[in-house]
């Protein structure tokens, strides 16, 4: 008589089930809740920021043709736009990173893959946020190289 393996994943009556389905430990704290809430709040703010950004950059005046170093420099000379872009950078990056984190959590099959993908993600996010922030704040609208003012700058009239 051949015995076949009991298909039931765990021992009957023991209430145990296949390890795959045992939740891999519970999470303490409210991280997921806060992340969820953040997605909604940042989303609402981003609507304003991004639509404003697109509108000003691509639709007003000559649209994309107007964009050049001078355009950017012109914007960032104004603290209002500095703040705008900074907020947009941070919110969009955090929002996007958290979104992609969810997606990695969903689809990565192995815990190790999941871990490394997330590490890459976080590293990328960190780099981008720091880089972007630095650029916005350390940006010099009148770059001077070797004592010569570069062309196309957005400089106060000397």
């Amino acid at each position: 008589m051949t015995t076949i393996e009991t298909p039931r994943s765990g021992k009957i009556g023991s209430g145990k089930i296949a390890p795959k389905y045992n939740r891999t430990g519970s999470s303490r704290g409210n991280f997921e809740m806060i992340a969820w809430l953040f997605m909604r709040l940042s989303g609402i703010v981003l609507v304003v920021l991004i639509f404003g950004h697109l509108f000003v950059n691509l639709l007003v005046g000559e649209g994309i043709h107007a964009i050049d170093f001078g355009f950017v420099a012109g914007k960032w000379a104004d603290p209002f736009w500095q703040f705008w872009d900074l907020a947009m950078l941070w919110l969009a990056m955090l929002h996007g990173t958290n979104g992609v984190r969810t997606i990695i959590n969903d689809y990565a099959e192995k815990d190790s893959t999941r871990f490394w993908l997330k590490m890459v993600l976080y590293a990328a996010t960190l780099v981008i946020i720091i880089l972007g922030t630095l650029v916005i704040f350390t940006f010099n609208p009148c770059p001077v190289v070797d004592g010569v003012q570069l062309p196309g700058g957005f400089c106060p009239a000397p």
Partner: protein
Amino acid sequence: MQVHKYDVVIVGAGGAGMRAAIESGQRARTAVLTKLYPTRSHTGAAQGGMCAALANVEEDNWEWHTFDTIKGGDYLVDQDAAEVMAKEAIDAVLDLEKMGLPFNRTPEGRIDQRRFGGHTRDHGKAPVRRACYAADRTGHMILQTLYQNCVKHNVEFYNEYYVLDLLIVEEDAVREDGTPYKQKRVAGVVSYDLASGELHVFQAKSVVFASGGAGKVFKTTSNAHTLTGDGMGIAFRRGIPLEDMEFFQFHPTGLAGLGILLTEGARGEGAILRNSEGERFMERYAPTIKDLAPRDIVARAMANEVREGRGCGPNKDYVLLDLTHLEPAHIEAKLPDITEFARTYLGVEPFTDPVPVFPTAHYAMGGIPTNITTEVLQDNDTIVPGLYAAGEVACVSVHGSNRLGTNSLLDINVFGKRAGIAAAEYSKTADFVELPEDPEAMTRGILDGLLSGNGTERVAQIRKELQDTMDANMQVFRTKESLEQVLRDIASFEERYKHVTVQDKGKRFNLDLLEAVELGFLLDMAKVMTVGALHREESRGGHYREDFPDRDDEKFMKHSMAYLDNSVTAASSAESVAGIRLETKPVIFTRYEPMERKY
């Protein structure tokens, strides 16, 4: 062979089984074996309500309830049992409420109650609101609530374990009057694990049968595909008698052609039955309570209307349930599910159109005989220690020859609880009975026989023919000729059953094999029912003989007891049926004298 040891083994996880498990699980090591996941049990299909004389909405008391139950059962009810049930009904409902059951509420926040067939105030004066309910999902709520509480109490379930045999050991014993007899003792059960195809033996000090009904012997039935009378069949094959099996209830309002039930609660809420002339015909059959007469009366009235040519539809084979005069909002609130059934399955909109209905086989009044502590009887008065039965599989008998609506959900709760307590208490004092040698032998024999057979007969074909003949000849109206026809048919089915083929030869989830096993039980049950019906030459409750249209208290005011007895041959039996011996058991009277049953 795998052997498990438990103090208490409960067979079946419907209302009765789980109610028992909640009690037993807290007192003794308990396993519940069920062929379905617990929440699939047919208790979940019950709709209308569970009655108890709570008197939340109008004056009521449990004695009226007792009387209605006895009268409803046409005086074949054991009155001590009816008293127990009606008295404990109140606690049974309150227990469920405390376990969390979401009953509908009155404006004061109490459990709401509605009318139901045969439930009256002051001994038949007028309908009374006694049925506690949760919309038309009372059974669903009971099943879920009981399962939830089993989860709460960590009850051990063995899901999809088919119990196929009861292990009984016989000992020589002597009665008080000195006559020797064989005392049966229970050692355990044998079950088949559907998932792996392995047999498992469960040794237990107490065994509780709560495996539900046998409606699938009929074609048109409100019962689930899985209600194949296994529990009754297993007990019967092991020499336990079956009581009052000829009494089967036909519920008046099944969806025509399908059998899916529309609760009596619909009539409780005011729905009316009409024939093709639009006439409210129940006024002629039960002038006082009309559409709310007990089920046997209404079912017969309906069948009679159809017979006399006042049926509706192209074949004039059904009558109509009219809800159109009720407020749609009211229907939606009180009867949401059944209106959806009518829409889904017949395409009828109950708010505007009457619903085609016809009687459907519904409930087995008979079953494994027990006393009021749910101990199973091996004859009229000897109990089998450690063996208990409750629910539809059992016959206490609180339903006599006709069960009142809502009394079954009550039955499973009251006697399920009693069974759980009794089984657990017994297991504390008793020892294990030694397992017989090779306990699986009989089961393995049946299974191997079916698997290795290379006949050509199909299980489904035999089952269909059985159900057809039962519908045609054993339904609301019965005669000697029709019953004899059934017996002849069954004899030929039994012959053919020996040559059935099971196509699936595997071990994993072999439901093909189990359907073949279940057919064996169905054939046994159909035979026992029919033999009982043939013997009972009177009309009472759910059993109506056209050739004997009156109740005959002189000859038949007694329970019938059918025993498996291979020494009975066709020639030696009054009913010319081999293998079944019919005996009788007196009815227990306490306070109510039989009267004519009029509504």
